[in-house]
């Protein structure tokens, strides 16, 4: 069970949130230039690390805003929370 620190509402129960998967996957700047392998990389390939993972959450039953979490997938420990658009805390994440 996760206690997730929403940057706007504070710590709330996991059931108030929805998961958005790995963060910092940017849409290709020039989609028409991509070949099939590059599309597969963008759409499907994920780092899926055992350890710190930068991921997106949305506070669906609260402020309904998206934010990023740095969470250890081996221990469920939440290492950092930061806003959408901000870079991941230095030296961490995929």
């Amino acid at each position, binding site marked *: 069970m996760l206690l997730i620190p929403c940057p706007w509402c504070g710590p709330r129960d996991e*059931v108030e949130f*929805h*998961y958005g998967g790995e963060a910092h996957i940017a849409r290709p700047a020039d989609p028409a230039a991509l070949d099939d392998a590059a599309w597969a990389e963008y759409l*499907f*390939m994920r780092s*899926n*690390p*055992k350890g710190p993972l930068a991921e997106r959450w949305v506070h669906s039953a609260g402020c309904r805003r998206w934010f990023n979490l740095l969470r250890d*997938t081996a221990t469920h420990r939440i290492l950092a929370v930061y806003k959408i658009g901000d870079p991941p805390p230095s030296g961490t994440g995929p």
Partner: protein
Amino acid sequence: MQRYSMAALARRALGRHRSWTPLWRKAAPRAHYRVVIIGGGGHGLATAYYLAKEHGISDVAVLEKGPIGLGNTGRNTTIIRSNYLWDESARIYEHSLKLWEGLSSELNFNLMLSQRGVLNLAHTESDVREGMRRINANRLNGIDAEWLDAAAVKRFCPILNISPDARYPVLGATLQRRGGVARHDAVAWGYARAADARGVDIIENCEITAIRSAEGRITGVETSRGDITADKVAIVAAGHNSVLAAMAGVRLPLQSHPLQALVSEPVKPVLDCVVMSNTVHVYVSQSDKGELVIGAGIDAFNSYAQRGSFPVIEGQMTALLELFPAFSRLKMLRSWAGIVDVSPDASPIIGKLPVEGLYLNGGWGTGGFKATPGAGHVFAHTIARDEPHPLARPFSLERFATGALIDEHGAAAVAH
């Protein structure tokens, strides 16, 4: 290998059962193997067995981080069926089911296969249409499937609540009579014993720390018990497939999630089939000990921790009581989670990876147990011949670039 039989049992009984030998040797790793299999679950052990039996390759090591069969092989809900919608899935799961049907005698080990029938309930008009479509697709693929209306469902499973007053009333169900359950531990033990008898080394407590390659070709692995060189390396590690592939510089379209299950206290026989519901989302059967074995969906977030969150259990309990109000006073004994590697189309990845001599059997997500014999069989072929088995060909990693996905999300009779 000591063969098991009534005569052997009687003979050993006279010796007070002191002459039984362990099922497999405690092998120490050698410096080189033709094939190294990473992962000593059912799939890895089956792969080793079929490599030795069908392809004459017994210079094989199965490396397992802990003791064998304690990962997802020992954490699933033991359900076996082959009623998948798409042709590619139906063929590989039916291949597996056919192997299950002869496996206890082939391995001389009682897998306690019980083909008690699997019901997939329909609660809405679209469930009914989807179920009937799947029955037609199954029959075209030679798989037994039939439609039961609500009254027939009640006759087949009398304890099920089919009241029209339910929030999601049971409108009918698909039934695969050849579906059922098997003893999950026995699958690992049976394959381990049979593979060991054919010369395969099963090496437990041996964790992979690195995968070595040179000039785009696999050369071996580094482990907690020393370095091992190998001509071919096969990754069969379920939830940890991404971690292992990353050691060889390969990215996979997999996400690791906890899949929780739980069992109730043992009660008298009350449920003699497997009941699955996609819409209210729970699946349940009763073990020979009398415990109800209950499962549902994954926790949404990525995790390697072999534990999930309580609301997921609450959700499946709600669904269980909707279907079986009589279970409301049952106590639950224990719950656990396995780490499943879910692919974007809820179908497995079986085949070669972009490094020469490196192979993957993974991405089975929540449905790998039933596929154990079939997956091991086609994967062994893929490794031995260095080209995919015809049944495995559609499940290559390349499908994510070509777009030929096999979308079993929602189509596979249960949500993943």
